[in-house]
């Protein structure tokens, strides 16, 4: 019995006194000196992972050095204000853990909304996409030296004014010239009815090239006005 008691006391002494206590995350961070070659330890007060982005990406535009001119980076992402408001840590392009719901949610911020469309959407129904099975001839109207482009008609418009109105052309295109376009077999096209745009009523059938074709497919322009 005495031997058993001695063994018990020895075991208790070993576990309580002699062996080091297991580290918690915090004590480990405090006890380990910072390694200059490792990632910085996240602050315990801001609650932000070092993987969160809090600023903007910046490319050093190499041309600055060449020309001695300050140039805004060509591709940058503006800082995003976090859900807690201005000055709070931002979670840009990253998913984060929402403390209130304990679930993965996207950042609840406005700046990540989609940008406005870059083109005038004047394609009305019926809109159909198809692939040409044989070489086809289409027509195109243009102004100036704009001899290649992606919008065509299946038949020549009656007149330049008819083209401007029916195709809802923008002011830069007065349909001064008309050309034939030889669309090769296997080309994707989208047909639609031109809708009102640029103060023009639209209404004509138009075709948009969804595949690029060689510039040699665009024939010589003939005066149309």
């Amino acid at each position, binding site marked *: 019995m005495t031997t058993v008691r001695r063994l018990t006391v020895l075991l208790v002494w070993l576990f309580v006194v002699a062996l080091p206590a297991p580290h918690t995350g915090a004590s480990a961070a405090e006890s380990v000196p910072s390694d200059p070659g490792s990632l910085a330890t996240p602050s315990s007060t801001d609650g932000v992972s070092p993987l969160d982005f809090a600023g903007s990406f910046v490319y050093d535009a190499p041309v600055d050095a060449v*020309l001695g001119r300050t140039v805004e980076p060509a591709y940058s992402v503006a800082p995003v204000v976090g859900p807690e408001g201005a000055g709070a840590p931002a979670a840009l392009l990253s998913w984060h853990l929402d403390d209130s719901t304990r679930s993965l949610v996207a950042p609840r911020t406005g700046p990540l909304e989609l940008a406005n469309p870059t083109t005038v959407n004047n394609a009305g129904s019926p809109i159909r996409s198809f692939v040409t099975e044989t070489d086809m001839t289409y027509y195109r109207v243009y102004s100036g030296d704009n001899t290649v482009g*992606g919008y065509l008609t299946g038949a020549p418009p009656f007149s330049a004014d008819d083209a401007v109105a029916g195709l809802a052309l923008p002011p830069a295109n007065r349909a001064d010239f008309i050309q034939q376009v030889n669309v090769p077999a296997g080309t994707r096209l989208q047909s639609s009815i031109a809708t009102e745009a640029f103060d023009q009523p639209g209404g004509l059938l138009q075709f948009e090239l969804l595949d*690029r074709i060689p510039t040699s497919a665009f024939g010589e322009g003939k005066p149309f006005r």
Partner: protein
Amino acid sequence: MSGTSEGPVIYVDGGTVAISYPAKVVLDLGVLLIVLFDPDSFIPKVGQFRNLVAIRRTGELLWEGQLPTSTTGDCYLTVEHVDKDRLRARTFSSFVVDLDALTGRIEGKEFVK
């Protein structure tokens, strides 16, 4: 720079600079060259052809010109130097765009259909 490249080249300061595709237009802006690759030299079924680039006279790529759309097959068709730092170019997607010659970034655009 040896002049023995088998691919397309442009001639600069008595030497040659190898380029990725045949050039349709080369604009000499002094410290940099604006090169428009021939749009017919690469017609992808998927993706775009960023065929407007700026290179140093030594051949290093400075930028690829931004395109105004994400449309498949979009590329530049023409380019001209209209001002000190400004280029004007036309795209297959029927845009006329103004670009900053130092960055290749679009400064303005107009849809001409």
